[in-house]
């Protein structure tokens, strides 16, 4: 009986520990999740229930779970042989793969200038709750969700929403077309069929007066016009949010459990950069797009950067969950003396259009969203580095272009916000690039003197500003087929090039066709301080030379 129970478990252990070399493992297939599927029904997930489960139950499970205790988190499932993801319905390589121009960043996902001139027909309105808004149809028939800034903070949430929209788009995520736009009240019309939901959740006919009353919750511009963020409806019918764990069962394309998706794990780091503390399932959306698959969107970035949507962000946000089980219990059992750093932080909004966003005090390790989720909690160093690469791909000019899209009216505020984002970018890069050896784009080259060298790009030098003089590499070559081994170091100033004699191979040796590969482990040191883990370059002997077939960090 015992054997019957243990056998499948041990089989699993054996299966997982078989150590298939990376280049021999299956690799994700580009656009595989964009195959046509039957249109799934929309879904409405119970927000409160889900948040409580993730924030309390999830946190406890994580702590009493042996995986969390040992820190042995699974690596992401959907990585290719070069430790990256492929384009999919979740993510498209953009700035980190091909540098976008500042103009492209500024334009982001948008295809127009926003709601067109002329009448704006309100087809629905949300006048209750903390954040009022409209759903409008412009003269060209396009639909937008329109939300306003809180009183006294014009451009706070709208500006943050658009800036983060541009940055997330350039990073590679699917986002809607968000615009800053201004309108006059005489442009507003109400659709005869428009309704508004009252406090009793009863739909009532919407009147123009009720719609205009919602504007009393925001400020107008000096010329009497109003400013808002308009988020264009994504193409295709919405099908509810996606979760950060499990798969969507009515989507046959949804192959990888979401907590195992590199894009969602790495999103944690991108979220930290733009302080997207409200990154939770309710701010995501699946849309059934042509020719008939679910595309996965991130939506609503009003609570990013220094904006808390209806107010400025506060120091706790980004450092402690809305209900942080362990910090709360820490306060109880320490009689209130357990006080984390943010509780001592004196703060005031930097500027009404920025809110509060730490720059020099930003700690990429401590950052967390307001609600936990399984994908973020499962993030490993490799995932974090992958996310940091997205962040590190932005330069100052690109960040300024994204900030410009937010239309902040005050030049000092725009400049300050860009500087803070740059500072946060540097801190993210500094931390995550030191968790791994950030070796990319390995290639073999033969020098004029017939010496074979391993060339690579050190992202620490490219993105962080570490110099070649600060950097040295310790390497170890090993070919499991021939048993050849060689190790060496390339001292400071060596450049991104390793001279490894063994790479020249053995003339006459037959091509290696089985699962035996050569590897070069490279450990990066900066100013004598070694990275947390080495990178491994995989090579296969082709019969005449080695070719590079894989890379892990």
């Amino acid at each position, binding site marked *: 009986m015992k054997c019957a129970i243990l056998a499948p478990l041990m089989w*699993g252990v054996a299966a997982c520990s078989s150590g298939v070399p990376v280049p021999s493992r299956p690799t994700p297939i580009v656009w595989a999740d964009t195959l046509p599927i039957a249109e799934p029904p929309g879904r409405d997930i119970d927000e409160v229930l889900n948040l409580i489960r993730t924030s309390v139950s999830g946190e406890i499970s994580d702590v009493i779970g042996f995986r969390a205790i040992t820190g042995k988190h699974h690596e992401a499932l959907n990585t290719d042989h070069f430790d990256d993801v492929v384009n999919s319905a979740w993510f498209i390589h953009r700035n980190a793969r091909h540098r976008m121009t500042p103009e492209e960043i500024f334009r982001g996902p948008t295809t127009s200038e926003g709601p067109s001139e002329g009448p704006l027909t309100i087809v629905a309105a949300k006048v209750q709750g903390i954040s009022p808004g409209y759903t409008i149809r412009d003269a060209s028939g396009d639909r937008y969700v329109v939300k306003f800034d809180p009183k006294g903070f014009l451009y706070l949430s709208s500006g943050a929403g658009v800036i983060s929209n541009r940055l997330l788009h350039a990073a590679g995520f699917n986002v809607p077309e968000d615009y800053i736009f201004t309108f006059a009240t005489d442009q507003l019309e109400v659709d005869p069929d428009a309704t508004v939901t009252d406090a009793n959740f009863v739909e009532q006919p919407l009147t123009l007066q009720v719609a205009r009353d919602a504007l009393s919750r925001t400020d107008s511009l000096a010329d009497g016009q109003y400013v808002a963020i308009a988020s264009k409806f994504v193409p295709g019918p919405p099908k509810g949010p996606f979760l950060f764990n499990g798969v969507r069962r009515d989507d046959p394309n949804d192959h990888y459990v979401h907590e195992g998706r590199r894009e969602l794990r790495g999103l944690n780091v991108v979220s930290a950069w733009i302080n997207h503390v409200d990154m939770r399932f309710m701010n995501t959306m699946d849309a059934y797009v042509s020719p008939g698959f679910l595309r996965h969107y991130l939506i609503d970035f009003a609570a990013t950067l220094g904006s808390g949507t209806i107010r400025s962000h506060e120091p706790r946000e980004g450092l402690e969950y809305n209900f942080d089980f362990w910090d709360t219990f820490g306060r109880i059992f320490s009689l209130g003396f357990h006080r984390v750093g943010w509780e001592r932080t004196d703060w005031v909004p930097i500027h009404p259009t920025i809110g509060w966003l730490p720059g020099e005090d930003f700690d990429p390790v401590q950052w967390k969203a307001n609600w936990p989720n399984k994908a973020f909690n499962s993030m490993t160093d490799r995932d974090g580095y992958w996310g940091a690469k997205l962040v590190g791909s932005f330069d100052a000019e690109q960040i300024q272009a994204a900030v410009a899209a937010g239309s902040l009216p005050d030049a000092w505020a725009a400049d300050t916000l860009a500087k803070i984002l740059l500072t946060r970018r540097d801190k993210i890069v500094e931390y995550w690039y030191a968790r791994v050896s950030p070796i990319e784009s390995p290639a073999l080259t033969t020098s004029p003197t017939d010496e074979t060298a391993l060339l690579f790009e050190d992202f620490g030098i490219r993105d962080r500003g570490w110099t070649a003089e600060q950097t040295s590499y310790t390497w170890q070559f090993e070919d499991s087929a021939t048993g050849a081994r060689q190790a060496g170091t390339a001292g400071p100033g060596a450049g991104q090039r390793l001279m490894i004699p063994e790479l020249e191979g053995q003339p006459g040796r037959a091509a290696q066709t089985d699962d035996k590969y050569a590897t070069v482990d490279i450990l990066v040191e900066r100013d004598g301080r070694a990275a947390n883990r080495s990178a491994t370059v995989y090579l296969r002997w082709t019969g005449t030379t080695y070719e590079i077939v894989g890379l892990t960090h």
Partner: protein
Amino acid sequence: MLGLIDRMGRRIPAVVTIVLLGVLLPTIVSAQEVAPERTPEIVLADSIRSAMAAERPAGDYSTDWVDVVGFPLKVIGFPVELVLIRIPAYAIGAFTAPRPPGFITRTLRTSNEAGVYPGFRTSIGPQSGLGAGIFVDTFDPVYLNTSISLHGSQRHQVGVGFDGERAHAEAEFRWQRDARVRFFGIGSSTPDEFVVYRREVVDVGATAGFQATRQLSIDVGIGFEDNFVREPLSLGDETSLFEVFGPGELFGSEGRQRYVRIEAATELDLTHQRDFQRRGVSFRAAGSAYRGVRDTDSEFHRLAFTAQGHLPLNDRQVLALRGHTELTRSETGEVPFYHLAALGGENSAIGFTSNRFTDLDMVSVTAEWRFEIWRDIHNSSRIETFLHFGEGAVAHRLEDIESSDWHESYGFGFRGATTENLLGVLFFGFSDESFHVNVTGEWQP
């Protein structure tokens, strides 16, 4: 390998296959009669997905040694998590999820709009109870307040109140029945055995108040009360007061006592409230004189002094200190036992039940260290923990109190509150004679 096979019999790579299908399928499909439910491109996509299954990484993690070693932890932890976390989470989610309001919510909203405000209070502990009430101000300034508890206690008030900017005045008629009140005897060393009684009161009074400055207020009032102590409504296995105290042994337990009452109070409040945190000190002095009327031959007066200090240790911790004393003096020597000063309960000595010790005079000092452990994101509700320590004594005369008369009491607990309402208190009270847990939930609109 995944892929279509071309005319030469060669396999087309998976990526190319998918791209080709993406381009060609719409054309293929448009040329075919589309089935009503399973369109050809979906059927084809299904077959491609099946073929891809072996081509790409697994969609979920296979078991590894961490799962094997951690399996017992999961087995042990699952029922614990189910009971302590998941089921409560489901319950809270079910109650609080935004959804069209049910009958009860709609009724409550309708009644509130009509000036009718239901409320409830429940207590689980040594004196468990459940009470519900309704406050009505439909015809403001006239109000009606009526409440009833599961034990049969009732309170019904009707009155008229006027609130000005700096002054207020009320006149009220009240009928109250305390269905089962505990009485432990008089003195500082009474045993923890008690008897129970029922008290019914008719009270007619008028008060007026004046806010002299923002900090200083003065209230005066006059009233008439008719007290009647009787057998409790239900006795259970408890002992009636009348089984222990015979005629003439306990003033106030026989017949009715009717008093005319004159009262005055003044308060100096130097505290400041910011969000949930109070800081500063306040002082209150109150006096009331009772003169028996009709056949009640009794005359006495009571004085009460309270000093409170809220000393913030930081923005989330505060030390709350409270000193309170009550003095009862009688010209005739007769004070009904239910008007004696009492020690015990949540406000004076949480390690004891309410009215645990009674006598003419009482003094208590308490210190409570309160620290916030959680606050919601909109600063509208929070949970605080408190550590409580109290010392109190009763005596015939304050100056007669000896060291042996002091009773220590300590405990800790949690309070949940919104900026407008106290929602609930859970505390654990300890003293040299008892330990008890008390849970109180309250909703007063």
